[in-house]
């Protein structure tokens, strides 16, 4: 009876053993990459909205402050989405016949709200409060990106936990003076020394314990 295993089997065995390790490693890499990709996080993806609202035009072009619409950012967990009546403050008079703004006018007429698609959507098991971040010197742009350069709104950051922790572990690298919170263009000249001073000034106690966000 001839031998079952030929000498080439040795090579085949070595290749498949290493191959299995590589295959598993690649599989793991693919999964991790997919999980961090914008397919899972929706980072950088523009979502369909009922009205193509341009932050670029309203903020950079017209110079309207964030607070004009997102009124409750300083006092509540939720920054607030403006009621249709806020839009109509101006659009009663300008662009008041634009077909693009018909959903807003209809909402104002009928009292039926506009249903926006949520762009920044944290999972339901995460607690987040806007007011404390704004009070302790975290600017809008730190998390939401250069909104003033977004003709259509998209999510600038991944909003994943590792991204949150990046700042919670080293807030001095991201903190800014309270006067510059709503300034989209602000860049620090010397973030490290300035940041450390602000951390002390604002008595920032950046929390890392699980139950701060996962209540």
């Amino acid at each position, binding site marked *: 009876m001839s031998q079952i295993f030929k000498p080439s089997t040795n090579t085949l065995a070595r290749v498949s053993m290493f191959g299995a390790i590589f295959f598993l490693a690649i599989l793991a890499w693919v999964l991790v990459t997919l999980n961090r990709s914008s397919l899972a996080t929706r980072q950088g993806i523009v*979502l369909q909205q009922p009205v193509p609202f341009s932050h670029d035009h309203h903020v950079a072009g017209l110079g309207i402050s964030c607070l004009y619409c997102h009124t*409750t950012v300083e006092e509540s967990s939720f920054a607030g989405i403006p009621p*249709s*009546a806020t839009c109509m403050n101006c659009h009663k008079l300008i662009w008041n016949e634009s077909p693009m703004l018909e959903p807003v006018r209809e909402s104002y007429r009928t*009292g039926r709200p*506009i*249903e926006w698609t949520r762009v920044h*959507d944290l999972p339901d098991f995460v607690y987040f409060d806007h007011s404390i971040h704004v009070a302790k010197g975290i600017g809008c742009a730190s998390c939401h990106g250069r909104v003033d350069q977004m003709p259509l709104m998209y999510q600038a950051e991944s909003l994943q936990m590792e991204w949150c922790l990046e700042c919670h572990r080293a807030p001095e690298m991201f903190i800014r003076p309270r006067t510059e919170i709503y300034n989209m263009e602000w860049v620090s000249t010397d973030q490290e020394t300035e940041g450390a001073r602000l951390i002390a000034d604002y008595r920032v106690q950046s929390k890392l314990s699980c139950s701060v966000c996962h209540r």
Partner: protein
Amino acid sequence: MTKFDHPAEVPSTSRRSRIDLASMREHLQDARGPRFWRSLDELAETEEFQELLHREFPEMGVELPGGVSRRRFVQLMSASLALGGLTACTRQPLEKIVPYAQQPESLVPGRPLYFATSMTLGGVASGLLAESHMGRPTKVEGNPEHPASLGATDLFAQASVLSLYDPDRSQVITNLNRIRSWSAFVEDTRRETLASTRLRLLTGTVTSPSVAAIAQQVLSEHPQARWHQYDAVTRENVVAGAEMAFGEVVATRYDFARADVVVALDADFLTTGPGAVRYARDFMSRRRAPVDHPEMNRLYAVESMPTATGTVADHRLPLRPSQLAGFAAALAAEVGLPDAVAPAGADVGGQGEWLRAAARDLQAHRGSSAVVAGDYAPAEVHALAHAINGHLENIGRTVIHTAPLEAMPGDQTASLASLVDDMAAGEVDILVMLQCNPVYDAPVDLDFTTVLRQVGRRIHLGLYRNETSEHCHWHIPAAHYLESWDDARAHDGTISLTQPLIEPLYDGKTVAEVLSVFTEEGSRSAHGLLRSYWQGVLGESGFETRWRKALHDGFIADSALPPTGVTPGTEAAAETTALIAGTDQIPDGVDLAFRPDPTIYDGRFSNNGWLQECPKPLTKLTWDNAALVSPVSRTPRWSR
């Protein structure tokens, strides 16, 4: 029927180790500092308890229920853990943000708003502050400014928010089990209801002035109509006792903050009945650091069942319900009520010394003591309590009498019985049952269900489709109090307003709204009815301001009923004691006392999981209803 007089059917008690006070004392003799136990068995360290403890929490026990090896268990658990993790491998679904079209003033998304409202139980209101998140009530606490609450609530109010969202609530109007609209009901009812209709209204206890007004309007427009009130947990003994003592119906409330000595006659005034929340606050204020009062108050509690009030009493005396009247008469004689007769043989079980001590204490605190009779104590006990309070000059100080809270105080059981008589005689054309469930809670002897079927048209309003709605032509879902406009009196008569926190989830109706269908003007909204009633009472000038303030506060300021200058007749009381003295003070047989459940009340809260789950005071029972028997009585006489 099982008979319990055959020894063979009674489980043997001889094998059970005896737990007696002597052995307890022995165990506690050397104890220093606080020591806790779960049951008397644990304290006595009986063998049965040790065995139970071992079965429940085995020492060094690593047993797994039959046939599962440890390896298999770990395999299964890790597989299910891994599979559970797979559910995370989904993409987060897209969500909508729906802002307002016109945002209401003072609303901050993400922050709650608070509204003053009130809830009734047995017709009497308690003042509440309801928390609302984006238009949804989520939590109920006491209204700090309301005199019946001062910021606290009872457990029924705490759990009421769960009932609001109960998916088992009745959700549609039905006629003979077919879904109908409100307008169909209104049209159908108005076609059938003439002035000559023999209409009968059946409600629970009503203290609401606006509901009473609309009911009176129905009665005046239908000369043959009658209005009956019935609650299974009725306070008719209180009413009857007041009538015996004063010759008229008066309401009684207490000021425990001013009472140095309190004698409770089967009265659980700290946890049950109208005003209990306020009474607990007032009573306990006298047990804190004595800044204003140099002395702590003292409580003597006579009770037939262990209650929370009995646990805080300085002196507690267990007594059979049938002996309570004798005790009250003896107490009246002891405090020196003129011509009062102490019944012979009342001094059973050594309570004589206890009684004399309480009486001495009462006499030493004339004008600053109170004798409180429980809601379920017989009318004679109430009458004697009034007489003793009058004799001790407590009336106007610690005990305050006012006009009755109820719109129609009286003997509710007799009222229901007369309704049943009319129904049996075929003298009722339409029976409207509003927020009550008589098929479930009417006395069995009345055979309510059978006579109900003889009424031509039966209408029911309720939160649930229940036993009564089963027998009715029309069923209308009721609005929960968090969805209603309403009013009611608190224990001191304060007019408390109920305002809705949310639109009715199932288009429920209030009692007033259903009653309005039977009036000349026809169906009106609860808000319109309430507002127009109070506009009529408070007057046109400055009404808007007063009304808005009342809604904001949750009650109409200074609307508590003023004290009436009544004094109880001492002769009537002396006659009562003589009557009691003529009866047997140690009756044979077993006393049976029915009490409302501490968490489920008369059964209306049986679908509320929070209340079912809440352990009942002292017994710690949950999801259960037991007949409580004293440890002495539980041992049959033949084996004692």
